[in-house]
Each structure stands twice: as structure tokens, then as C-alpha cells.
């Protein structure tokens, strides 16, 4: 990589990154600026949440988190997110299967539908679900202000996650391996269970982690749909908002920290599980 003789001084060429990818002055500066921006916007604010939560001492933290109302909200949020994730693991894999392996008119439309919950504003999602499952439902079903509403809202907003992590992996699977299993006598179901599913496990785990984290974080769709009834249909995000509106920021921060911690634990746990599954075989 010598500079051409026609362009004698190009100090950038000798100071460029090259194959070893070491940072140059320019890129190092860029990284610094980016990190500064990222810290000011994300890292420091999130740190502030944790710091504020523990600032008043462990007792205050514990009190804020274990009030009956808050505890109920946390139980509801985590429990529903967990159930919804289980449903998503099954339906998400099934949807990905149909998208990859099946061919029919209108399949393209399904692809668009799956991404809708990701792009739709959450408040609009609430209204969307309300129109079919609320008081004015053409189906005569009214689940507004019930726990089912919470379940449904979580199901809606977490729809794309398992599908989109499983889909590319499924598309890349070596079809010959399935032929090999068939020639050895395995039925389609056995082949799916013993050969395909283990290959999909890491992708399913990753999607499940995202689905769970997204579920416990949900707020907007529940505002109109669940009524946010204390002890019944109130989720953790709503509790945090109440505390903020009551100017009790340390309590809000405490509950927020719990939420962050739960998401973190689940993400790490799923990462560990999927590594173990891949290794066992």
C-alpha cells in the first residue's frame, strides 16, 4: 500500500488504520466525541437512575419497592411478560417457519404486518387493540380494564422479536441435513425436534430475551387499554410514572432500577442458556 509517486504528501495514508484496525488520531477523536455524546445521553442518565435509587439508603429503596401496590405491579408485569414470551417462542418460530418454508399469495403482506407493532406508536397500538377488543368491539369482546388487556398489549408489542431473530437462521439452514435425517428414518416431527430446533435455539433465546425486556418496559399501549387499575391492571411503568408525577423521584428511581435489573438478569440468563444448549448437543 505505497502512495503513488504522483501524490507525494499524503500523511493520512501512513497514518490510516490498516489491517490491524488500530485507531488513528482522527478516528480516536471521533470515538471520543461519540463516547461523550453517548455518555451524556444514555450512560450518565441511566447511572443517575441507579445512583438516585440507592442514594437514600437500602431501607428507603426497599420500602419504595415493596409497597403493596408496587409489588403487585411488578408481579403483574414480570408474570405477564413471562407468559407472553412463552407464547412468542412458539408462535414466533411458527410464523418464521411459514415465512421461510411456505409459499402462497399474500405472504408479502404478512411480512409487513409483523413489523407493524415495531413501528407503530405505542399509544396508537393501544387504540388499535381497543378498536377490536374494547367497548366498541365488532366481535362483542370487551377486555378493556382487565388483565387480559395487559396480556394482549404485551403480545402485540413483542410480536416481531422472536420472528425476526429466528427467520434469518431458518433461511440459512442446510436442507441436506434434514434429508439425511429423513433417509435415516426420522419422521418430519422428529427431524424438527432433534435436528432443526437445536440449530434454532440460540436465535429463539435471543428473541425471547428481547421479547421479555420489551414486555416489561411497555407503557403506552396500556394507558387506554388497561385502565391502569391499581393492584389489578397496573404495570410497573405506570407506578414509576405515578411516583414521578408525585415528585417522588427516589421512589421512581428505585422501581426503575428493579425493572432494569430484572431485564438485565433475564438477558444474561438467556445468553447463558443458549450457550449451554449449543455446546451440549
Amino acid at each position, binding site marked *: 500500500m505505497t502512495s503513488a509517486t504522483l501524490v507525494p504528501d499524503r500523511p493520512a495514508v501512513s497514518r490510516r488504520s490498516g489491517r490491524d484496525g488500530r485507531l488513528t488520531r482522527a478516528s480516536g477523536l471521533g470515538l471520543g466525541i461519540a463516547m461523550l455524546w453517548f455518555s451524556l445521553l444514555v450512560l450518565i442518565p441511566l447511572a443517575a437512575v441507579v445512583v438516585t435509587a440507592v442514594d437514600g439508603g437500602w431501607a428507603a429503596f426497599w420500602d419504595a419497592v415493596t409497597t403493596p401496590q408496587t409489588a403487585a405491579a411488578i408481579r403483574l408485569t414480570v408474570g405477564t411478560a413471562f407468559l407472553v414470551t412463552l407464547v412468542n417462542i412458539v408462535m414466533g418460530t411458527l410464523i418464521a417457519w411459514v415465512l421461510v418454508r411456505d409459499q402462497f399469495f399474500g405472504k408479502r403482506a404478512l411480512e409487513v404486518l409483523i413489523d407493524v407493532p415495531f413501528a407503530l406508536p405505542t399509544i396508537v397500538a393501544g387504540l388499535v387493540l381497543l378498536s377490536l377488543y374494547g367497548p366498541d368491539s365488532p366481535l362483542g369482546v370487551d377486555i378493556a380494564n382487565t388483565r387480559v388487556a395487559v396480556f394482549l398489549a404485551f403480545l402485540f408489542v413483542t410480536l416481531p422479536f422472536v420472528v425476526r431473530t429466528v427467520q434469518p437462521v431458518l433461511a440459512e439452514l*442446510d436442507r*441436506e*441435513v434434514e*434429508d*439425511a*435425517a*429423513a*433417509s*435415516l*428414518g*426420522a*419422521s418430519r416431527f*422428529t427431524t424438527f425436534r*432433534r*435436528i432443526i430446533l*437445536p*440449530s434454532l435455539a440460540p436465535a429463539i433465546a435471543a428473541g425471547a430475551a428481547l421479547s421479555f425486556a420489551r414486555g416489561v418496559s411497555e407503557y403506552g399501549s396500556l394507558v387506554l387499554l388497561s385502565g391502569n387499575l391499581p393492584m389489578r391492571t397496573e404495570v410497573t411503568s405506570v407506578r414509576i410514572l405515578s411516583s414521578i408525577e408525585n415528585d417522588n423521584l427516589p421512589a421512581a428511581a428505585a422501581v426503575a432500577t428493579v425493572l432494569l435489573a430484572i431485564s438485565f438478569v433475564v438477558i444474561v440468563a438467556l445468553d447463558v442458556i443458549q450457550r449451554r444448549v*449449543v455446546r*451440549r*448437543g
Partner: protein
Amino acid sequence: MSIEIVNVTKRFGSFVALDDVSVSIPSGQLTALLGPSGGGKSTLLRIIAGLESADSGRVEIEGVDATRLPPQKRNVGFVFQHYAAFKHLSVRRNVAFGLEIRRRPKAEIRSRVDELLALVHLEQFADRLPAQLSGGQRQRMALARALAVEPTVLLLDEPFGALDAKVRKELRDWLRRLHDEVNVTTVFVTHDQEEALEVADKIVVINEGRIEQIGSPDQLYDEPANDFVMRFLGPVTQLGDRLVRPHDLEILTGDAAGAVAGRVTRIVRVGFEIRVEVTTDDQVVVVTLTRAEFLSLGLTVGAPVGVRVAAAVVPAG
């Protein structure tokens, strides 16, 4: 006969992969399906296995009409060009797969797997993952896996195509010796004529969805049914309007009856063979001589010579 293919036709869209093909595969022998890429041989193999279904025609395996049977029920062993190893299972579990599906008792599985691993010399790799094996080892594992369930027929689809030349030759010999030991009816697909000639008891030449010729290696080499088979199975050169093998020609320096006159234009030594190009009035004819023959003739470039088919050779075509 172990396998009967009767009037099988297969189309992919408008492309005709197999056109009314019929062939009998003999029991207990090693048969090669030989031909150029895209000629239909892999398709035929997959139809025998049940991995593809024929549009029309019949497939019989050991007298049973298997045309509508799914691959699970045909009891055929299949080995793929790219191994199709179960990546998340150890070598042992890979080989045991077919037996586990059939719910054989654990002890039986264990001893059979050990037996097969010994047969393919992979005992010390039993607990490794396929990714930790070389290509040749993976293919041996695939063979052991296919043999584990004692298939009626063993089918191999260009089994050595993904391996490099030296490994390919080793495994070729090894397959032949394995077959002599195990004696299961084996059909393998290849586009390498050297491989087919070396390994097979019987060769089926398939081109453009049709069978060109069926016979033993000697028959195909010495008595090709048409120009295509002759060109595909070995070197050819043209003398007059006849296709001949270069080593079936002789060069004469003196007067000779029935010889075509020409001049030596090129001499190339390849190992122990000498390839001599003789330019006649309208052709360039290639003649292969042994060193001894060459030296006894004392040829040089530019020398006038005569070329004719050696007397001992049976005319081709």
C-alpha cells in the same frame, strides 16, 4: 436385481432432468452413475432415495414397489457431497442417530456404533463434534452413520467432490475395500471418469437425462457405444473420420500399408508416456507411445511418418 428403475421421467419446470430412464442395479455390487454436471445422475439417485419423486415411472427396491414410499420407509443409506453432518451432535451421536430413531436398546446402539467407528477408523474421534474433523473424516463419519441402520442400499452423491485430490484418491480406494468387506448394494454418483473406472463394478453413463451406456469399466472403455461415451471415459483423438484412443495408434517410419502420411509437429513427454502430435493433410493426430517405442523409432520434430490403428485393437464404434 436390487434396484429397478422403470421409465422414470422427472422435470423441474421446463427443464427435463430425466427422460424415460430405465436401468437395473445389480445386488451386492458397486455401481457408478457417471456423467457431466447437470446430466441427471444426482436426480436419479435422489429419486431412488425418495428425496425427490419421479413425475412418471416406477422404482423398485428389492422387489418392493417403492415409488410412493417416503425416504423414511425405504431403508436406504444416503451420503451427501457436503456431509450433512448434524453439527450439534458428537460423532458418536451422529452415527447412532438412525438407531436411536428406531429405539434400539442402549447397549446394542453402543456396540454397533463402536463397531462402525472401528470400521471407518474414527474410534478416537467418537466424542468430538463434526466441526473438529477434517473433510475426509466427516465423510467417513457420514458413511458410518448411513451404514449403522443396515440399509438395503447405500447411495452416495459425489461423496468425494468436496475433498482435495489426495484425500479423494485415498477415500476412493478405501470405499472399494469397504464395499468388499460389507457387500451392501452401493450406487454412487460421480462426474470423474477415473473414479468410476477405478472403483465401480458397473458403470451407467448418464447425459442430458438419458442413459448413454451401461457396462463394466472395460466394456465402456474399450467398446464405447457412441462418441460421447468414448470422449467422456478417456482421451480421444481423430484419425480420418474415426475416433480412436491415442494409445491405440502406432507410428511407422518406413512404408506401411493403410497408414496416413504426416509430419511430426510436437513431442511432449509426460512421465513415462510420450505424446507425439502428427499433422496430416487435414488433421492433428495425437499418438501416445511408451518410452521404449519412442526411442526405438528415433523420432524428431519434422520427421515424415505414417499413422495407423495398431493391429491388435478392436475397431471402435
